[in-house]
């Protein structure tokens, strides 16, 4: 049933019912707002620096002697979007295995961070890159050349992982 008595419209005072003073109040408010400082960030020049907890594009950790990854394939297995492809090969180094090919299809990746969570070597982590652009589908498949990032630039994320993972 519709309640038709004591509605908000009936409780309004005469001046409120006239609307005009209220409209003037509203106009005054928006006029004041015009001169307030702006919240816009001028994006390409002024960039936002995310915190360590930010999940940007996944990257491979690159140490002095090479990548950390041992090509166990867990990340590829867990990836819900089936974005990762790993091919293992043998190496002389202590870890014995390394990825011959490591590709992430950035059109498929959903930035869930499961690959990072599952990796036994802490070899794949989420970076702070958020503006990921490509002009064709082929370009969207990031190989090792684009994925490997020196460990020095990933310290913040690694610290975050050690603290909270």
């Amino acid at each position: 049933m519709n309640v038709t008595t004591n509605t908000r419209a009936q409780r309004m005072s005469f001046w409120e019912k006239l609307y005009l003073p209220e409209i003037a109040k509203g106009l005054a408010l928006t006029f004041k707002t015009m001169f307030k400082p702006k919240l816009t960030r001028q994006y390409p020049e002024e960039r936002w620096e995310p915190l360590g907890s930010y999940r940007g594009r996944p990257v491979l950790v690159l140490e002095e002697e090479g990548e950390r990854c041992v090509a166990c394939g867990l990340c590829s297995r867990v990836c819900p979007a089936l974005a990762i492809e790993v091919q293992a090969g043998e190496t002389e180094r202590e870890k014995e295995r390394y990825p011959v090919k490591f590709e992430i299809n950035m059109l498929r990746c959903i930035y869930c961070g499961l690959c990072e969570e599952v990796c036994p070597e802490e070899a794949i982590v989420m970076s702070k890159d958020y503006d990921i652009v490509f002009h064709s589908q082929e370009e969207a498949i990031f190989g090792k050349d684009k994925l490997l990032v020196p460990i020095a630039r990933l310290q913040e994320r690694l610290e975050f992982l050690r603290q909270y993972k």
Partner: protein
Amino acid sequence: MSSLTLTLIKGAIALNFALVVAAALVYLERRISAWIQYRIGPNRVGPFGLLQPLADVLKLYTKEDIVPYNANKAFHRLAPIISIAVALAVLCVITPASYILLEDGTKLFIAVAPNVNVGFLLILALTSIGVYGITLAGWSSNNKYSLLGGLRSSAQMISYELAMGLAAVAVLMLSESLDMYQIIASQANGRWNIFFQPIGFLIFLVASFAETNRAPFDLPEAEPELVGGYHTEYSGMKFGLFYLAEYANMFTASAVMTTLYLGGYDVPFLPSLLGLQEGTLARVLFELAIFFGKVSVLLFLFIWVRWTLPRFRYDQLMNLGWRVLLPLGLANIIITGAIVFFVR
């Protein structure tokens, strides 16, 4: 120079001026709305983003022009043309400055069509034709949302045109003429109609918002309920024409209000203080500056109100038009008539 070429030249200047103003308004609208919302607005194309309208038009021209398969092609094409043509045609009687006294003693009037003795009626008549543009656009698109938008707009325009006309009648009683030049002359030396007709001005202002389909009366294009309203099925520059027509309409509505209520190009004392003789070029330039200054204030008001007030509901709109503005307008006429009758 024959009077025909003269009129054509004046018309060309007025048309181009109005189109440039319309483009500039699009830029201003985006800038002011941004400021009101704590944003900056377009600032990348050219200095301060001033070339943004140019980029917009370029974009619109390169867009694909899609016409619905079942649309009535002829009317679909005609509708935006009517809209923009009507919006620009009103300019012919706008009087932004008085005249230049030529050496042989003839007066060179600045208005495109000076001394039209039915000037204001012409404006009312032309703006009513504007409804056709929108209604035809809605109907010929063969889309229910467009049709509803078109219907709404015709209902809205007819309702508010009435109130607008009534408000104007009171002004015409004071000026005793329909000629724009005479209307401005009757308000000379600061006897602006807004001081004698505050209620009439308010009615006219509200009705102008409704006539130009601007918020808070932009029901014909209410996005949440009608997708895009009458221009849903338009793309490319045809859409651009509707867009431009809205701003051209704003410009003409502001110019009409300036003429009727704000004394046109009149400012008390200043011209004589500056020693500007009537009929000189300097005086005309001064008058143009005054006129367009007043128009800009009103245009700013248009934009400002749009970004402040929420849209009316349809029944509220009709209520306001028929049950508030119409009686107010009638009362205004009667009171004005009585005062004019007894005082004069």
